[in-house]
């Protein structure tokens, strides 16, 4: 009995120590790293907020508030573990599947803003491979970064082509290891993001499929989340952090900033040409938007249902009660961006036009 009390006191003490720190810290986690584990993001507005230190700037009048960024090589699954351990306040750019998995396991977060949508995935194979289509993956050894939004995007692509995970021999590898394994011939194919574009250009791999040319709903989604504990304790700080990210999104979605944004993303180690190819024939705002409209809500409901159908989560996930959009609305109003992005209904039909659609590449 006394032992129990002691253990309880110990755990309570540890938690008190952890939450005392949280009072003055804004700890942001990002589910990924750049090339060779560089602590930089790419492909979203979170990278712009990080590199241009917009969160720090927004909080500069808050005495004693420290902003820290952590980049997880283990991506969403590792970020979730850190959230569960109480080591993070914000998850910026967390993918749909890991955030849904976290919510199904009782992680207490609020969905503040969208951090990205329509992020395409590519299927890369060695140059001499006889795999020509998704169907050609049957029985093949394919790299997969499990628990990330890449997994559910992969599963959806397979389903769209009449396959399931069981038809393919998936090897669990993280992003950078998967690339190495593909290049050295240890796996026969790998799903991934824009990382493969440069390798394809130099002839090391061949890209045989991309969701860019398939259904737009097959792309990856990500969001900006805050822990419920932080949001309740510091609604004012939460509002400022959201505002900083909306400023970043405003910048990253504007065609006038296209080359500047690609420059910022290239701090990840991927060359500017990768982003030029990744975004070819596609406007920045098609992927970069913080707006939570019916289309986003529908995407997450669909992903949650499919995650359960694929056996990736065990429980139904309540999506409706997850969103907390008052900070986003406040930021959009304060920054006069209410009509900056277009909005869409659940089916993807446009409801309102956005100013961003008229922006033009400068110079």
């Amino acid at each position: 009995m006394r032992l129990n009390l002691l253990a309880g006191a110990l755990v309570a003490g540890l938690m008190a120590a952890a939450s005392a720190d949280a009072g003055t810290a804004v700890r942001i986690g990002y589910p990924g790293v750049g090339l060779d584990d560089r602590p930089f993001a790419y492909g979203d507005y979170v990278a712009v907020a990080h590199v241009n230190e917009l969160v720090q700037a927004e909080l500069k009048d808050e005495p004693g508030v420290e902003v820290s960024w952590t980049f997880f090589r283990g991506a969403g699954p590792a970020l979730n573990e850190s959230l569960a351990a109480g080591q993070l306040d914000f998850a910026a750019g967390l993918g749909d599947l890991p955030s849904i998995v976290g919510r199904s396991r009782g992680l207490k977060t609020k969905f503040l803003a969208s951090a990205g949508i329509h992020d395409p995935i590519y299927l890369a194979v060695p140059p001499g491979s006889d795999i020509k289509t998704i169907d050609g993956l049957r029985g093949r050894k394919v790299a997969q970064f499990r628990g990330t939004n890449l997994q559910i995007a992969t599963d959806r692509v397979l389903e769209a082509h009449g396959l399931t995970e069981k038809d393919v021999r998936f090897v669990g590898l993280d992003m950078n290891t998967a690339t190495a394994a593909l290049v050295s011939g240890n796996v026969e194919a790998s799903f991934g993001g824009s990382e493969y574009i440069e390798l394809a250009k130099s002839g090391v791999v061949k890209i045989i499929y991309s969701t860019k040319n398939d259904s737009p709903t097959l792309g990856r989604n990500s969001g900006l989340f805050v822990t419920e504990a932080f949001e309740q304790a510091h609604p004012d700080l939460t509002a400022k952090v959201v505002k900083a990210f909306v400023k970043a999104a405003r910048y990253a979605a504007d065609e006038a900033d296209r080359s500047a944004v690609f420059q910022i993303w290239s701090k990840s180690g991927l060359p500017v040409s990768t982003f030029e190819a990744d975004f070819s024939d596609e406007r920045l705002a098609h992927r970069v938007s913080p707006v939570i409209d019916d289309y986003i809500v529908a995407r997450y409901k669909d992903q949650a249902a499919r995650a359960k159908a694929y056996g990736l989560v065990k429980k139904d996930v309540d999506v409706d009660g997850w969103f907390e959009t008052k900070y986003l609305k406040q930021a959009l109003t304060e920054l006069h961006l209410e009509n900056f992005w277009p909005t869409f209904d659940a089916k993807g039909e446009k409801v309102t036009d956005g100013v961003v659609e008229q922006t033009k590449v400068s110079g």
Partner: protein
Amino acid sequence: MAGGRAVAAFPLVAGGGPAVRRRAPEAVRRLATGLVVPAALLAGWQVTAANGWLPEQILPAPAVVLQTARDGLDDGSLLAATVTSLGRVARGFAAGGAAGLLLGAAMGLSPTARRLVHPLFLALSQVPVLGWVPILVLLVGLDEALKLIVIAWAACLPVVLGTMQGIRDVPPAYLELGRALSFGRWSQLRTVVLPAAVPSIFTGLREGLANSWQTLVVVELLASYEGLGYLMTYGRQLFQLELVLVAMAVVGAIGLVLHLLLAALEARLQRWRPAAGS
């Protein structure tokens, strides 16, 4: 003198006939003592989970873990993973153990072989098993071969050392006796050297088996699509810690059973010895 006193004191403690009857309660008591700490940990786990002292994502309740184990048994995934892992260990340990016995015997019996191989062997054995993985991946890829080689190597090391030491430590008096009975080389080896070396060889085998079982989990964590180690990574990446705990329990239980089986085999091979400690 001391030995004499111990012999004299023994009947007083254990008694002659009653010794047999007293052994059963002794075994029960030992088993019970061995269960005290696990039971306390289990109770602590249950209390911690019931009071929510740790987030459920980090420490699922025992009942949840049990249910996950049942689910895994029902859909066959747990059994399939266990069979895969056991198969890998069986093949890796058989290869590594056999190689270890041969190499150890050669180094124990032949001073020349020992001088040739022993220093290099000692140096190589200092490299942790995982240290070999990067270079092995380049040589043999990520497939079964990698896993078998790593497991075999992990199993081989203690077997070599145990076998060599066991053969070198055969009491000279035994060898003397063999020579006096004019045994040939083969009879000397079979009837004198190997039986005398059994305890040391088995210490090596037990360690080798434990090594290969532990290494298996590590290599399955690396890159695979089946097995208990795979189940652990999968559980971690999909935030199902109960799946990780189930796999851990199976790994631990099988390791214990394998250990006990080898101990029983050793006891059988040692029946010729008068009594332990003599």
